């Protein structure tokens, strides 16, 4: 319950802010034109906040939201417009659409349902395409939606009234008063902020930051993206219905390129990763655009300055508002691509301002009680990359409580073996099985997020943190997954793990601000938060000095004991491996050539030959 206080307070403040600015402008300006401008601003805010829910949380770029808005707008108009007003335009409409009618709230509901159903279908497509930040497929699919919707609206005149005429409300039957707009505006702000703080929203953001790392932490980004899409489209649909209701008519051009541009500029100028940014963007662009419009049509006369003699006629013309929008878009992309506020969020600021400074939690005690007896086995693993056999019958086994090392020269297949075990590379043949907390599971070729949920959690050779999330959020994200997929009677909290990693003082900093050693420790804490049966560490000391890597030995042991996990570690650093491992496998050319204690391995002639080259090889 308490978790919802700040988002709701944030929504209330944002609501008061934008409504206050609007009413102030109205009072100063007076007149129905100002009133219409302000109403349009509120409605645009609903739609832009709706779009932010998707783009901001998932990082997937959508050109298609205005296409959803068009669908919702037509659905709303078809049901809300009185049959007598439709008769002249679409008398021949199929399915009896010419005769249906519904009250405005019901029509809005229908619009939401229709557009959400279509969004679900599009969402399946987007999920199938593996949409992620920067994916071209998402751009193509959403852009196609926008164009297809537009073309259909233009051509299917039996239903839409065609390109020019469209559908029109009867006189005096359009939006009257602002109560509905206020209600929808507050609701959209609350939904957006609550979603951003919800489990689903935070998992979506993890996927936005690094889809691969998210999957390795047991997150299936497609699920969160789809939830975000449906919620986002529902909000947009309400906004679109209000827009049609306010304007009193709908034509295909109303929800097309120009409106896409306007809403996107508002979103990216304010800051697409923040609801506050979206609102600030809407307000800023609304007034900048209005100023440009007036300068364009009236020149300096607007300010009563009488500077009309100044030869600026070539600037103050029709088209100026569009130029300003375009320049705002390009300018922000060049100089501040994350917008004015980036991901600064009002409710988060409130939370930090009004919650007292916490003490670092006491370091948790190491996992005790009955020792787990989990087993991880990989057998006869063969991986072919085209004609190259990267793994040739490799095998390894590990039990809980022990630290197992994988060593071998470059190209021996160490990382490939970990990739096979964690589901990132499907083996050509072979078996990966885990006998752990959840019983015996065959994990051969399982999806990475399923492997993570089963209890094998990895870190990456080239650090993959959720870089714009805070240190604490990085760990909390894993904790969220663990709560639903890996329940444990002895739960080590996210804050405890952050403290145990020695990162308590950095907990509210972005992960990207940490130095290298701290980043490595955070990655380890994030993996440990999954409450894993086994931690798989891919070169945890790469790039570290000798003293740092010795430090890391203690650290890895501590974390593993804290959550009661076995460890499999890959490294080049022999000192590290000898210092930490109970047992070591040595790989060369895709097969295990030796297995034993670190001392045995160091003495093994085959290992020495593999590392140093033997007489037979030269």
């Amino acid at each position, binding site marked *: 319950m308490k978790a919802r206080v700040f988002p709701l307070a944030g929504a209330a403040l944002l609501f008061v802010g934008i409504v206050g600015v609007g009413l102030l402008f109205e009072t100063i300006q007076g007149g129905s034109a100002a009133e219409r401008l302000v109403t349009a601003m509120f409605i645009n805010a609903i739609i832009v906040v709706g779009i932010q829910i998707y783009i901001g949380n998932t990082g997937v770029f959508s050109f298609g939201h205005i296409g959803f808005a068009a669908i919702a707008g037509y659905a709303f108009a078809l049901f809300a417009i009185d049959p007598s007003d439709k008769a002249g335009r679409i008398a021949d409409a199929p399915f009896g659409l010419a005769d249906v009618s519904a009250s405005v709230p019901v029509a809005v509901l229908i619009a939401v349902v229709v557009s959400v159903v279509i969004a679900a279908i599009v969402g399946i497509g987007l999920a199938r395409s593996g949409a992620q930040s920067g994916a071209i497929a998402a751009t193509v699919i959403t852009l196609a939606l926008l164009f*297809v919707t537009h*073309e259909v609206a233009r051509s299917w005149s039996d239903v839409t009234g065609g390109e020019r005429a469209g559908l029109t409300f009867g006189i005096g039957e359009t939006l009257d008063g602002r109560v509905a707009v206020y209600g929808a505006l507050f609701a959209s702000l609350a939904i957006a902020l609550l979603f951003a703080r919800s489990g689903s929203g935070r998992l979506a953001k993890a996927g936005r930051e690094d889809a691969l790392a998210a999957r390795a932490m047991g997150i299936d980004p497609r699920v969160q993206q789809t939830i975000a899409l449906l919620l986002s489209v529902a909000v947009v649909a309400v906004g679109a219905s209000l827009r049609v209701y306010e304007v009193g008519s709908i034509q295909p051009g109303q929800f097309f390129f120009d409106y896409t541009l306007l809403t996107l500029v508002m979103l990216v100028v304010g800051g697409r990763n923040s609801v506050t940014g979206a609102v600030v963007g809407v307000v800023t662009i609304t007034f900048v655009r209005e100023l440009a419009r007036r300068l364009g049509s009236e020149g300096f006369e607007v300010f009563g300055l009488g500077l009309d003699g100044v030869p600026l006629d070539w600037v103050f013309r029709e088209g100026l508002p569009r130029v300003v929008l375009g320049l705002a878009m390009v300018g922000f992309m060049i100089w501040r*691509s994350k917008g004015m506020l980036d991901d600064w969020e009002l409710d988060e600021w409130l939370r930090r301002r009004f919650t007292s400074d916490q003490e670092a939690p006491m370091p948790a005690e190491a996992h005790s009680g009955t020792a787990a007896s989990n087993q991880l086995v990989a057998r006869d693993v063969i991986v072919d990359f085209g004609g190259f056999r990267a793994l040739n019958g490799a095998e390894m086994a590990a039990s809980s409580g022990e630290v197992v090392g994988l060593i071998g020269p470059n190209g021996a297949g160490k*990382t490939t073996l970990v990739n096979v075990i964690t589901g990132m590379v499907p083996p050509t043949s072979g078996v990966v099985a885990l006998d752990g907390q959840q019983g015996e599971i065959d994990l051969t070729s399982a999806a990475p997020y399923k492997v993570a949920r089963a209890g094998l959690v990895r870190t*990456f050779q080239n650090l993959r943190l959720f870089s714009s999330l805070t240190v604490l959020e990085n760990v909390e994200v894993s904790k969220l997954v663990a709560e639903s997929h890996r329940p444990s009677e002895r739960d080590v909290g996210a804050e405890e793990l952050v403290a145990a990693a020695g990162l308590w003082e950095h907990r509210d900093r972005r992960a990207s601000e940490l130095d290298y050693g701290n980043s490595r420790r955070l990655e380890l804490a994030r993996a440990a938060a999954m409450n894993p049966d086994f931690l798989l560490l891919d070169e945890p000391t790469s790039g570290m000095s000798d003293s740092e890597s010795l430090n890391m030995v203690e650290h890895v042991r501590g974390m593993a004991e804290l959550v009661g996990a076995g460890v499999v570690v890959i490294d080049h650093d022999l000192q590290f491996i000898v210092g930490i491992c109970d047992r070591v496998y040595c790989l060369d050319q895709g097969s295990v050539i030796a297995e034993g204690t670190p001392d045995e391995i160091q003495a093994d002639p085959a290992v020495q030959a593999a590392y140093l080259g033997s007489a037979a090889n030269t």
Partner: protein
Amino acid sequence: MTSLLQNLIDGLGQGSIYALLALGVAVIFGVMHLLNFAHGELITVSGYAAVAAFGSNLSWWLVAPLIIVVSIVTSLVIERVAFSRVRGASEFTQLLTSFGIHIIVSAVLIMSVGASVKTFAEPPWIFDRIDVGPLSLEKFDLLVIAVTAVTLAATTWLLQRTTFGLSLRAAAADFDTARLMGVDSDRVIRGAFALSGALAGVAGIFWLMRAGNTDPSAGIDPMLKGVLAALIGGLGSLRGAVLGGLALGVAEVLLRSQLPSSVAVLTDAVVFGLIAFLFIFRPQGLITVQHAERV
């Protein structure tokens, strides 16, 4: 059968223009990973240059090379002013930048010359036909096909046989590695924009000849065709882009002649929808080689 052949040739005429546009889109996508929504603006700007030139009583023979030059210069200016500053930024940033450029160019034109459509005379022979057996071929289509063939041959030569072409292909395959191997990235990217501009210029000549007019938002249509054709061809694959353009042209002509007109106007929407559908299953593009991400 005859009508099918007729459609095919008409379609190739139309498709040749799309192929040139798509090739320009694909070249830029190859080196920058940017889907250039501003590609059509090259034709818009060239169109106004043509209007000005006709105002000075120049003939098509002089206007045609002018269009190519204006298109190349415009392409280079856009690169210099905007794209060079977002190089290496996220796809999101680059995409929105190109979107912004599209808006700025059309809005500046509205401000400077007005929103109204400007017309000019098509060449007198544009609708002349030559009868070959049962076929009636437009001179224009034949000219387009011939010029496109020559342009593509020249482009192929440029890409396959010159150092610039080699650097461009290397950069398209792996931009960072190409830079490390000593490829001058500025030069390659400027070269890519010049090439893209030249191809759009050649396409623009025919586009404008046929249209006989231009207006501030005239760039949307050619941009859309170029992007669609490049998408059909798999984005980044140059050969694919050309084939995609030809396929799009033929498909359009076939659909227009076979379907009732109320459905035929949906050709673009249908094609776009199909492409989106295919992208669901081949998210990296339809022909593109997948680059596995290293972990």
